[in-house]
């Protein structure tokens, strides 16, 4: 992961200090370069357990790359990722999943050919014993309001139902950290409100830390504890939704209200 590129900012001091144990997730000097393009640049990010954080920023700000680094779909060029006190930087995706990081993709990617119950079984059989499938399936279906669709083939669900099913599948893994890429894209106002309630509940009642990438600032306002603004691959601002909304610099680069 180290590179001979002299411009790389290495931070040996970081490695010595190690992770802060009160945080569920922490990144130190995280950097990802594709050839000459730096998509994520020296990001120090920290998240408390049970916190719901929104990531916003203009297109190309490096939001998706950052998420991919957390899930292990991409390897960082430099820097460290700590999860639950342990360094997970080099771990492959499936081992991170086993440790409790779960991800929902931008486009709903349920198994369209399987029933709703069949979809849930894929993550469930990774974490619970076969005799518990039924009970757990019912529990999740009730919670995500899909009980009536139990035997429906997922490809025939509405867009909103698919989004809920996919969040349900991610939650079936019993994660401690849930990563969501634009969970309300393409949803109606009512469906968006449902998802907002669900996410708040997941953070507050289940104590799961959640990171949400989102464009819809109204949605961000209804759910976020704190907001991180990315720009050009780096953290540009971080704060409460009020601080972010009124920050003139954020308006200039992203919200664009100043004209």
């Amino acid at each position: 992961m180290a590179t001979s590129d002299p411009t790389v900012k290495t931070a040996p001091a970081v490695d010595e200090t190690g992770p802060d144990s009160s945080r569920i997730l922490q990144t130190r000097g995280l950097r990802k370069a594709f050839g000459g393009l730096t998509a994520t640049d020296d990001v120090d990010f920290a998240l408390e357990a049970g916190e719901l954080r929104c990531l916003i920023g203009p297109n190309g700000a490096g939001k998706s790359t950052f998420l991919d680094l957390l899930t292990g779909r991409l390897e960082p060029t430099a820097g460290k990722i700590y999860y639950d006190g342990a360094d997970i930087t080099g771990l492959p995706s499936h081992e991170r999943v086993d440790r409790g990081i779960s991800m929902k993709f931008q486009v709903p990617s349920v198994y369209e050919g399987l029933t709703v119950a069949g979809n849930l079984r894929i993550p469930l059989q990774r974490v619970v014993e076969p005799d518990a499938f039924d009970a757990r399936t019912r529990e999740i279906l009730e919670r995500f309001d899909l009980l009536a669709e139990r035997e429906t083939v997922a490809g025939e669900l509405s867009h909103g139902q698919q989004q809920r099913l996919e969040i349900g599948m991610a939650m079936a893994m019993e994660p401690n950290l849930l990563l969501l890429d634009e969970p309300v894209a393409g949803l109606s106002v009512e469906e968006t409100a449902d998802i907002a309630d669900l996410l708040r509940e997941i953070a507050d009642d289940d104590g799961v830390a959640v990171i949400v990438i989102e464009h819809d600032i109204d949605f961000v306002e209804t759910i976020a504890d704190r907001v991180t603004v990315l720009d050009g691959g780096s953290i540009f601002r971080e704060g409460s939704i009020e601080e972010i909304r009124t920050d003139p610099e954020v308006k200039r680069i992203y919200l664009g209200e100043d004209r």
Partner: protein
Amino acid sequence: MLELTDLHASYGKTPILRGVDVDVDAGEIVGIMGKNGVGKTTLVKAVMGLLEVDDGRIRFDGTDVTDEPADVRARRGMGYIPQGRDVFPELTVAENLRIGETINEGDDRLQYEAVYDYFPILEERRDQEAGTMSGGQQQMLAIGRALVGNPELLLLDEPSEGVQPSIVQDVTRNLRRVNEELGTTILFVEQNLHVVQHLAERCYAIDKGTIVDELEGDRLDSREAVTEYLAV
């Protein structure tokens, strides 16, 4: 010139458009604004013929084109600029532009001069592969490509998306010039306040798949009136 009557369309089984009525006169610049996910892209695709409508009619230049495929509509004079630009990445700039020649078959005046005049970078980079250009340059190429065949109507799907503010301003200015100098009618969908206020002469607001308001003059110039319908 373009008449949409009671248009219904769905994405899979989810209805997206639930009865849209829009009229555009020749030479106008009309905007359709709305937040994420209210049906803007679906509407443009339906007009272009890239998506089958469930119900309603589309009339273009006095002809009912509802059942015609996209390529026939393009040859009738619709120039389309897709969201996210969608230039042909492995074709050169010049080849991309050449594809646009098919638009508006009835009119054989090609607008290369105008295109190169508005976007000189396209002439400089004629032989570069389009996929290697920046987002803003690709946006210019997408507009240039649609313009080369001298379309009667330009259809734009969120021209500001993924483009930095300075280029958005440049694109907005050039679209106004296109309208003035070539007489091209323009219909666009947007959620960017700047583009809505600086480009549109008249603007529909869309929400939950229907037109909920129509703004002109002072109301279009008023920030408060417009932001009510935008995501910001």
